[in-house]
């Protein structure tokens, strides 16, 4: 996941690298997602999470587009 000064710079990067644009989030959106995703990462009790828990985090963060859904390999980010 890469940082850009604005959407305009994302489009330039995608065009230069011949890549389709993915999802763009604001810093505030990613900060809210980070607190949900990483808030318990330092805990001894953290053993990864299920797909259902991942889906719930995305939902809480307001990420409801298809881009955020689906089955991935075991989640443990």
């Amino acid at each position, binding site marked *: *996941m*890469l*940082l*850009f*000064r*604005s*959407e305009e*710079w*994302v489009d*330039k*990067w995608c065009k*230069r690298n011949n*890549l389709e*644009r*993915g*999802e*763009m*989030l*604001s*810093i*505030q959106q*990613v*900060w809210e*997602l*980070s*607190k949900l*995703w*990483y*808030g318990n*990462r*330092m*805990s*001894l009790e*953290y*053993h*990864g999470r299920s797909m259902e828990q*991942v889906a719930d985090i*995305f939902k809480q963060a307001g990420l409801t587009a*298809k*881009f*955020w*859904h*689906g*089955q*991935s*390999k*075991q*989640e*443990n*980010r």
Partner: protein
Amino acid sequence: MDEGLVWQGRHFIYSHIADTTRPPSVDEAAAHFGISTEEASELYKELHNRHALFLNTDEMAIRMANPFSGIPTNFKVHINGKTYFANCAWDMLGIPAALHCDAIIDAICTESNESVEIQIQDGNLRFTNDDLRIHFPLPFTQWYDDLVFT
């Protein structure tokens, strides 16, 4: 492998990074748990296989323990006089979220190469630019196909 050791090992690695800003070597893990280097290597491989971390298996070195990077990157996170490296633009926010600390993030726009500073204070974003964007190039289903690219 003993489940207790697996998760104690994960916790040791994360605590070590929080304290020192760098992942522990296999030898450091072996010394901490009083096990052989070979046993510590097996522990690291087990955590890698469970996606609890991402190893550079050639060197048996931790490349990623998200949100922390084992190598220098363009995403520096300054917390309490220490500088951590994040794996990506998401993880630069993940480090203060994980450590529950104020932070000053020093990053670079991928395309313009301009410096960007973001501050986290009392759990809130401060002094950031509303135009900043983080680009997720791949849908969630593909994140683990190539973690370094993701």
